[in-house]
């Protein structure tokens, strides 16, 4: 299994064409095997009683952050569908939808960067050394976000920034309402950009699949509810989070 496909450039030299899309099936298979294994392992363990969702409500996500999350989710799904479906033989006029969704993603990510720097507490999402105790110490409780959530965020951050940067370079090389394409990149550089965009997209398929799986797991559903309605109960917070590390506003 190869990561990249190759082609001959105009001078007859072998250059990278882009990612090998056969990898999609490998990624999907590995992801779903991982999910199945996790589901089986969790099912064999004794399940703790779910904390009560009634009682005092604690705000976990402000409305604007929830809107950001779901707009990002929709744009990401559109990007993956429009980017990958034509590669597996489902053909439709995808290009315009793809770059419009890509622009939307770029704009909201820029918004999120500014918001997280100036209006949110960046430390809530940073992975510190203490966080690494979490998987090995059952008594350890995280702050607002668990190590798994922070890891997912860090992965999505890196992958999304890479896919946006490579996407913007590719965007500059197609005709748009604002400019005509220039073919300014050499073919080998172009190949690296396509390879980056493709491999990162494939990694995002895996990460997003895992994210959806964990978001739908019964013991995590209250986090998904909080991303829709904004709150978790005080019981849910006390059960899963350290009160001193996550000082809520209400």
């Amino acid at each position, binding site marked *: 299994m190869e990561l990249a496909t190759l*082609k*001959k*450039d*105009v001078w*007859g030299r072998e250059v990278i*064409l*882009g990612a090998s899309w056969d990898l999609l099936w490998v990624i999907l298979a590995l992801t779903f095997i991982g999910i199945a294994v996790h589901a089986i392992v969790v099912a064999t363990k004794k399940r703790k009683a779910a904390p009560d969702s009634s009682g005092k409500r604690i705000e976990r996500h402000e409305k604007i952050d929830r809107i950001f999350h779901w707009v990002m989710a929709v744009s990401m799904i559109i990007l993956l569908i429009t980017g990958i479906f034509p590669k597996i033989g489902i*053909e*439709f*006029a995808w*290009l*315009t939808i793809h770059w419009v969704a890509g622009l939307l993603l770029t704009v909201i990510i820029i918004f999120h960067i500014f918001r997280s720097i100036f209006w949110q507490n960046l430390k809530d999402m940073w992975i510190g050394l203490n966080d690494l105790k979490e998987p090995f110490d059952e008594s350890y409780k995280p702050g607002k976000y668990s190590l798994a959530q922070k890891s997912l965020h860090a992965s999505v951050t890196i992958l999304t920034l890479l896919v946006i940067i490579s996407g913007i370079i590719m965007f500059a090389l*197609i*005709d748009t309402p604002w400019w005509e*394409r*220039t*073919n300014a990149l050499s*073919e080998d550089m*172009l*190949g690296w950009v*396509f390879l980056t965009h493709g491999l990162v997209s494939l990694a995002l398929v895996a990460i997003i699949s895992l994210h959806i799986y964990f978001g739908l797991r019964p013991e995590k559903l209250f986090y998904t509810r909080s991303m829709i309605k904004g709150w978790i109960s005080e019981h849910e917070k006390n059960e899963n989070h350290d009160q001193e590390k996550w000082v809520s506003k209400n």
Partner: protein
Amino acid sequence: MPSYDVMPEVQLYQPTEVDDALNLAEKFRQQGWLLGGGQDTYGWLKDRAKNPTALIDLNDIEAFKGIKTTSAGIEIGALTTLRDIIRDPLINDHFPILAKAAGRVASPQIRNVGTLGGNLIQDTRCWYYRRGLACYRAGGNICYADSPEGMNREHALFNASRCVAVSPSDTATALVALNATMIIKNIDGDREMSAEDFFVGPDTHITQMTALEPGEILTGIKLSNEWSKARYYFEKIADRDVWDFALVSIAVVIKEEANTILDSRMVCGGVACTPYRLTKVEQYLKSNPLSEKTINKAAKIASQGAETLNYNHFKIPLMENLVKRALRS
């Protein structure tokens, strides 16, 4: 890329029955090359720009040949030669625009062996693609024609999406104008689709020119009586009068009464990846009496939305003048 000038090793199948041909098409799919007149085959193979495993020669299948009347109009086998179409009295009587378009294909020698089906499904003439370069159309990630140095005199004005190649078929424009129906077979049965839908653009299918899927064979073309004996105009402008592809062509059929156009279908070749239907012009003509003013306006409407490349600006006045000539004829 070397030109070997000799054929590569390739299996040759010469089925005589339709079912055998369909089974072979299904067996080899993308690796099977459907051979009609062979006029756009051997160059690809000799240049090693296409490397099929098998040639499926359809010329011995009589069911794919000939012109016959049906209750709804005429049905033409895809293996019918262009010469037979040009000379057929039925076509000349009912659909002379098709005979005219077929008569402008390539050269007499090519028309003697070239088939209607082959002319319709032939690949684009973009020389970067023909040369075997890994452009978008060849599955790559770049268009060599639409670049600052690219030679794109023959390329598209409309509906380009990454690839700017144009449809080279002369008969395609006439068949879209005539609202023809394409008959497509595969081992599971038949399907029919309009000629307009048969030709596909790069926005959806960047590596193919038609809606034919692997394993399918274009077996015939139906012409309904809808546009039988309608006033028509066909003109093809090329660098050479013989053995050349259209820079711009136009195929028009018109139903008129007195000085009013009741209905029309106008199609340009050489300006888009598919035969480019001038629907806005058709609509404009329906609501306006045919006058010089109307004709001039129609010509301007025809070229609206054109996006020129470095060397194909000349196609805009060429196209506009063809619209004028078609309407004045």
